[in-house]
């Protein structure tokens, strides 16, 4: 069994972004997806700090300190991009105008609850940013997350242990091992990496998994 790398996970998630979609990429792993938009598709990336039409990172010498993404990294604007204030940025989020929010997670529950804002570590002050707004507002919430923690504990659980970002919001989960859909019947495995079977994946997952009849091998190029 060969798990996907983080860049491969981002590549896989990017394949599902449809031409013309308005998409918000969460801080961290999801941000990588913008590097892997399939040729010929126009995706409009939204940033909660007032940008539609974010482009790639600037080339050396073309950085503008007034142009950053939600993760506070320097970014660029593509032709057709626009600027607006924070309140309009969140009107877009909360009002259901974004097609997809691709978010990171600590945990996802069987019912699609998302926990991605605090581990309640007393050493760190909590911070929520725009996570809760994105989780309730985007038309479809997808999550990019390693299948387990570093010490092997499942991140896809019967119910979340960490405080929720929003209940019942996640539709699809991309992990380094599988692509999973949250459905009324439970969590359905759409794709698994080669060398893994349902029992093997279930052993790394607390939530009960259902294997789709038409499940596929999860593959990604070396990116």
């Amino acid at each position, binding site marked *: 069994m060969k798990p996907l790398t983080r860049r491969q996970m981002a590549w896989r998630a990017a394949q599902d972004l449809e*031409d*013309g979609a*308005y998409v918000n990429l969460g801080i961290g792993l999801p941000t990588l997806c913008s590097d892997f938009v399939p040729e*010929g598709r*126009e995706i*409009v990336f*939204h940033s909660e700090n007032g940008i*539609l*039409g974010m482009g790639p990172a600037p080339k050396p010498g073309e950085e503008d300190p007034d142009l950053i993404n939600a993760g506070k990294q320097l970014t660029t*604007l593509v*032709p*057709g*991009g*626009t*600027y*607006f204030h924070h309140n*309009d940025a*969140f*009107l*877009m*989020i*909360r*009002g*259901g*105008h*974004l097609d997809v929010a691709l978010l990171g997670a600590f945990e996802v529950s069987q019912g699609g609850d998302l926990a991605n804002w605090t581990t309640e570590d007393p050493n760190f002050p909590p911070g929520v940013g725009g996570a809760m707004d994105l989780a*309730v*507002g985007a038309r479809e919430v997808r999550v990019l997350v390693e299948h387990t923690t570093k010490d092997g504990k499942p991140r896809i659980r019967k119910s979340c242990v960490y405080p929720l970002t929003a209940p019942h919001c996640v539709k699809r989960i991309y992990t380094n091992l599988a692509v999973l859909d949250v459905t009324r019947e439970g969590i359905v495995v759409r794709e698994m990496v080669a060398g893994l079977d349902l029992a093997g994946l279930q052993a790394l997952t607390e939530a009960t998994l259902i294997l789709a009849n038409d499940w596929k091998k999860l593959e990604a190029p070396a990116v």
Partner: protein
Amino acid sequence: MIDKRVRTLAEAVAGIKDGATVLCSGFGAVGEPVELLNALRDTGVRDLVCVANNAGTGDEGLAGLIRDGRVRKIVCSFPRTTDPHCFEAAYKAGKIELEIVPQGTLSERMRAGAAGIGGFFVKTSAGTKLGRGKETREIDGELYVLEKPIRGDAALCRADRADRWGNLTYRKSARNFNPLMAMAADLTVVQVREIVDLGSLDPECVATPGIFVDRIVVA
């Protein structure tokens, strides 16, 4: 590729169904998408609920829809603007239902519909006939009423320039309800004076980002 341009007015208004709630922009005739409204009338659609500031002026646009009996109900702040004879005739004949909403409340209800706000408290209309029957609440010693969002099945708007992504600019006071209604409907259709190349609108000066727009047509 994102291309929201359509070639004809008929394509632009296609799919708006009988009984639809249609946000009709404009302040009087200024900023009114007259040609789109005429095209909507030509589809034969009926039983519309139109949300607008006024109730049509002259014989074209919203006035024409009303004259031809296509509007079951109008939600507006001020039905009698310049030359409202189509509306007045329908009203006197009992052929149109009228809901009067204060202009700021009308505007804010559509913004709530656009912004995922489930309801909001305002002072406007508290203690008046238009506030009767509304839930009230005293906040910091003042009386507020609870207002609910309005969303359209469609919004018909008018802008000055657009690009193929649907980014829009307006001219002077013709902006009025356009950016607001464009945000508050499931299908937003905009007639524009001119379509320009992507990237030629100043990104600091776009009044309606394309995310809110579904179709644009030159008219």
